[in-house]
C-alpha cells in the first residue's frame, strides 16, 4: 500500500496530466465546476487567506505610491488604455498543482513603473491586496521582466472575483503565491519586505524550478 502510494508520488504527475487531457476532451474545454473536483485535472484551486473572496471596492483604483516621482491612481479603464500585453502561460502552484496555457492580458509592470517614475532609493516593490491581509514583494529587476504583468483579463474574460478581480498580478516566472490577487496598491520601497506566505517560510525569490531558491532557473 505504501509502495503504491510512493509509486503514485513519483509517477502521479504524468498520470494526473493524462487525466487532465481526458477531462479536457470530455468537457471540451469548458470550465465545469464539478470537473475541478476530480483529482489531477488541470484546474485552478482557489485560495484565499481571509474569510472568503473579497468584493471589489465600488470605485476601484490601483494606487502606485511610495518612492515614485508621480504617484498614480489608475482605474481599470486607465489600465486598458495603456499598451496591452497578452501572455499564454502556465500557473504553477508551489505545492504542485499546475494549470497550463492560461490566457492572461494586462499591462507590463515595467510600463507602470516607467509612467510613475522610480525615485532615488527605490529598490523593491510592495504589493497590497484589498482583502486587507495579503502582501507580496518583488525586486525592481524582477518587476521589470517582460512576463510580469498587472492583469485585468484572464481565461478569456474579465478577472472573476474568485480569481482576484478586477485587477491582479501575474508573475509568470515565479510560483503562484507571487501572483497576488485583488491588487490594490503597488508601493516602491527601499528594500524587499517579505510577503504573506514569505513571512510563513516560503522563498522570497520564488522562481519556478527545481529547488525554489535564489539560484533556481526561471522556466516559462
Amino acid at each position, binding site marked *: *500500500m*505504501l509502495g*503504491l*502510494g*510512493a509509486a*503514485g*508520488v*513519483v*509517477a*502521479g*504527475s504524468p*498520470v*494526473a496530466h493524462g487525466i487532465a487531457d481526458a477531462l479536457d476532451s470530455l468537457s471540451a474545454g469548458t470550465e465545469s*465546476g464539478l470537473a*475541478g*473536483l476530480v*483529482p*489531477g485535472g488541470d484546474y485552478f*484551486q*482557489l*485560495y*484565499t*487567506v*481571509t*474569510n*472568503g*473572496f473579497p468584493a471589489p471596492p465600488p470605485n476601484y483604483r490601483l494606487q502606485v505610491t511610495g518612492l515614485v516621482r508621480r504617484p498614480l491612481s489608475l482605474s481599470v479603464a486607465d489600465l486598458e488604455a495603456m499598451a496591452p500585453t497578452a501572455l499564454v502561460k502556465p500557473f*504553477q502552484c*508551489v*505545492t*504542485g*498543482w*499546475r494549470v497550463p496555457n492560461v490566457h492572461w492580458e494586462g499591462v507590463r509592470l515595467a510600463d507602470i513603473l516607467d509612467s510613475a517614475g522610480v525615485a532615488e532609493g527605490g529598490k523593491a516593490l510592495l504589493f497590497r491586496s484589498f482583502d486587507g491581509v495579503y502582501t507580496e514583494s518583488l525586486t525592481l529587476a524582477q518587476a521589470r521582466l517582460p512576463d510580469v504583468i498587472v492583469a485585468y483579463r484572464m481565461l478569456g474574460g474579465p478577472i472573476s472575483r*474568485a480569481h482576484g478581480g478586477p485587477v491582479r498580478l501575474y508573475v509568470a516566472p515565479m510560483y503562484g503565491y507571487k501572483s497576488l490577487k485583488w491588487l490594490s496598491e503597488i508601493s516602491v520601497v527601499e528594500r524587499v519586505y517579505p510577503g504573506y506566505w514569505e513571512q*510563513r517560510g516560503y*522563498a522570497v525569490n520564488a522562481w*519556478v*524550478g*527545481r*529547488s*525554489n531558491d535564489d539560484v533556481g532557473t526561471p522556466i516559462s
Partner: protein
Amino acid sequence: MRSTLGWGGATTTSARPFPSSREHGDRLVRFDGVERAAHWATAALFLTLVVTGAALYVPPLVALVGRRALIVRVHVDAGLALPVPLLLSVAGPWGKALRADLRRLNRWSNDDRRWLSLALRRLPRSHLRVGKFNAGQKLNAAFSLGVMGVMLMTGSIMRWFYFWPLSWRSGATFVHDLVAYIFVAAVAAHIYMALTHPGALRSIFAGWVSRAWAERHAKAWLEELETAARQDEARPAR
C-alpha cells in the same frame, strides 16, 4: 491468571466462566476501554481532516471559510496526530486487548477467504467459522492503516514541499486528493455497515456484544472464549 477475553459486564474483566446472572451473563466484552478510546479519538481526528480538507479544496467551501493559513495548520496538525491514539494504545501494558485484536485482524483463515468470495457474490455464508472479525473487517483495517501511511507520506510532501522535486509535489497532490475521495467513500461504507448492524455498533460504544450476536456473527470467537474460560476454571484459584 485472569481471562482477558473475560465474561461479564461491559467494564469488568473478572473471570466468570459461565453466565451467572441474567443481567451480565449474556454480555461478551468485544472492545475494552482503550480500544474504544483509540477508535473515537481516531474518528474525531478523521472528521477534523475531512472538514478542514474540504474547506481547503471544494471551491464554494473555500469561498465560505477562507483563512487558508489557519485551516492548513489545523489540517496538518490533525493529520500528524492521526496515528497517535493508535500508537499510544498499543504501546503499553494497557494495550493488551488491542494488540490481540491486531493479531486477529492480520490472520486470514481459509474460512475468511471463502467468506470474502461468497460475500462478493452475495451468497449465504452462515455455515463458515468466522472469528472475532470477518474478512470484510480485516480488509477494512488493513486498508485504513495503509491509507493512513499514504496520506501521511503524501501530505508531508505537500506540507514540506521544498525538499522535493516539483513533479513529486504534483504526484503527491494527485495521490492525496484521489485517496482522500476513496477513503471517504470507504468510511461512509464503514458507517453504513455499522448503522445496519446495531449489535456490532453497540460494541464500539458500550464495549459488549450479546452471546446471541457472537453465535450468529463470530462463532469461532465464541468457541475461543469458551475454551479459554474452561481452561481458566480448571486452573487452581490464586
